């Protein structure tokens, strides 16, 4: 090696730090903000000794979009567009959760049929949310096959959403008081086909990974958290259940007639990546069960509550009927009267308890709307979960926690 080359390499800071690592002292590694292994924009500065992580520091807020400030400027029926983009893997749950919050505030009674329809939609959304997470765990362990299987099924769920509301991902689904229209015959056909075909593909995916020696070796013991620590960190959802706490909002505080359905809340024991994977797998199966029950028991009735102040009247009535014209005007201009009050409503979102803390002062927009975003709350436990493990386990832990950037950064 010539002297020139030697000098050049010694000037190079990275070379210095890699020398440090060889000596057994500590190096710094930037995982993110844009890193091939992290799905989304998160920054983790790791202190590593070789492969072993000694500690880490997180930076978030790279996609901060000011949802809460935005919500203070928008009429109630326009806030669904914001909730869509919270956890965009399961937008309908957020939409319906928000609608239920407003219904709680105005004291609306929702017909049983609309509630059952909501259950079907929310469980489909939960499936599509968990599918992304589990497919990505597969990708991060090196098994891309599962991803291609599951994304085909996810497209089917998108087709179903499209049939109901016309959109795929950011669905803006439903209205305050129910849905904008009833399920179409095409939806019912497609849903039946989905319920018939999906379990087969899903079981195939399950056999690919669940008892796969490599997958198990790779995921068991990666990023564990105990039930006590998880509760300290205010975990909810699949991540808390994987640690062994059977807390599920659908059971503890049933909304939308969840008490009518028979389903199991799966729990894990160690709270590691494998348990999180398995809890989500089982929840997908339970969601299918709930959808089947809801379809079988689907009551007759209306798909919406009698709330003319939140439903655009048919066009011919707007032209011919004074009352309909007033409602039309009020909805379009966002002048629907709302009582003053303070409510907290929560639903079991894809990642845990998704809460809406709404303060209304009777004005056209919320005075304050705070979202309890499960991702934001549990992602802070990440450094604790990865300390002492290897870098590759840290990547797996991140994907198995299913941190959705939109929900994390608000």
């Amino acid at each position, binding site marked *: 090696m010539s002297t020139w080359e030697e000098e050049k390499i010694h000037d190079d800071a990275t070379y210095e730090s890699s020398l440090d690592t060889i000596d057994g002292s500590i190096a710094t590694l930037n995982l993110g903000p844009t890193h091939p292994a992290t799905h989304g924009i998160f920054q983790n500065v790791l202190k590593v000794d070789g492969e072993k992580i000694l500690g880490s520091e997180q930076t978030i807020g790279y996609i901060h*979009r000011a949802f809460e400030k935005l919500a203070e400027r928008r009429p109630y029926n326009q806030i669904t567009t914001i909730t869509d983009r919270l956890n965009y893997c399961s937008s309908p749950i957020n939409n319906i959760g928000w609608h239920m919050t407003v219904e709680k505030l105005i004291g609306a009674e929702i017909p049983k049929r609309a509630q059952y329809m909501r259950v079907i939609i929310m469980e489909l959304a939960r499936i599509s949310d968990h599918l992304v997470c589990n497919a990505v765990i597969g990708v991060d362990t090196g098994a891309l096959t599962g991803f291609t299987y599951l994304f085909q099924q996810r497209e089917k769920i998108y087709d179903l959403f499209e049939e109901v509301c016309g959109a795929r991902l950011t669905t803006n689904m439903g209205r305050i008081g129910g849905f904008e229209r009833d399920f179409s015959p095409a939806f019912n056909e497609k849903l039946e086909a989905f319920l018939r075909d999906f379990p087969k593909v899903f079981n195939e995916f399950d056999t690919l990974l669940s008892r796969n020696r490599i997958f198990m070796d790779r995921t068991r013991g990666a990023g564990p958290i105990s039930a006590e620590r998880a509760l300290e960190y205010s975990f909810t959802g699949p991540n808390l259940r994987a640690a062994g706490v059977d807390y599920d909002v659908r059971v503890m505080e049933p909304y939308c007639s969840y008490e009518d359905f028979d389903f199991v809340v799966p729990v894990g024991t160690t709270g590691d990546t494998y348990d999180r994977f398995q809890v989500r797998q089982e929840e997908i199966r339970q969601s299918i069960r709930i959808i089947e029950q809801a379809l079988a028991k689907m009551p007759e009735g209306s798909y919406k509550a009698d709330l003319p102040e939140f439903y655009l009247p048919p066009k011919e009535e707007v032209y011919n009927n004074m009352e309909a014209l007033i409602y039309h005007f009020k909805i379009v201009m966002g002048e629907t009267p709302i009582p003053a009050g303070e409510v907290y409503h929560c639903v079991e979102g894809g990642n845990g308890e998704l809460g809406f803390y709404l303060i209304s002062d009777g004005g056209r927009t919320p005075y304050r709307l705070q979202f309890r975003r499960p991702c934001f709350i549990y992602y802070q436990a990440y450094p604790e979960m990865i300390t002492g493990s290897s870098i590759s386990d840290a990547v797996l832990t991140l994907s198995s926690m299913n941190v959705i950037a939109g929900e994390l950064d608000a």
Partner: protein
Amino acid sequence: MGKIEDLEVFNGEGYQLSRLDKVIAAARANSVWPLPFATSCCGIEYMGSMGSNYDVARFGMERMSFSPRQADLLIVAGTISKKLAPILKQVYEQMSEPKWVLSVGACASSGGIFDTYSVLQGIDRVIPVDVYVPGCPPRPEQIIDGIMKIHELVKHEGMRNRYSDEYKAKLDKYNIEVNGK
């Protein structure tokens, strides 16, 4: 595999003649390596277009280049906040010439519904953009249509374009230096 339609060739016995710049452009257009800078909702739709149903691999794009150095096409899918803007610019600067930028979705193109204190109102405030895809989020078909438009640009990319004064002036507006000069 995309077809090479615009390529004029002269076939002789045992040889084939064509213009070198056209051949290179056609080869490039059929093997664009994208760097997905996927931040939010649009990123999920981009994953959808990578998935088995829409499959961008049909266009020679199955190789996602997560390292900017080897990437030809920067696909910005999702909201870019002011906090993230310098990072996006850095990633763009690290890419080697020739490079193209596809802005996917309303947020990346204009800020979209998020006209707020924290969101950059369109990535064209920090880097030059070649093709904009509207939608919130755009369907995978739309994203693929945007990619097709990029392919069209790549096919007509001359050998000396990136050394031209016009190109330098365009990058100067963004305070970016032309790579590899």
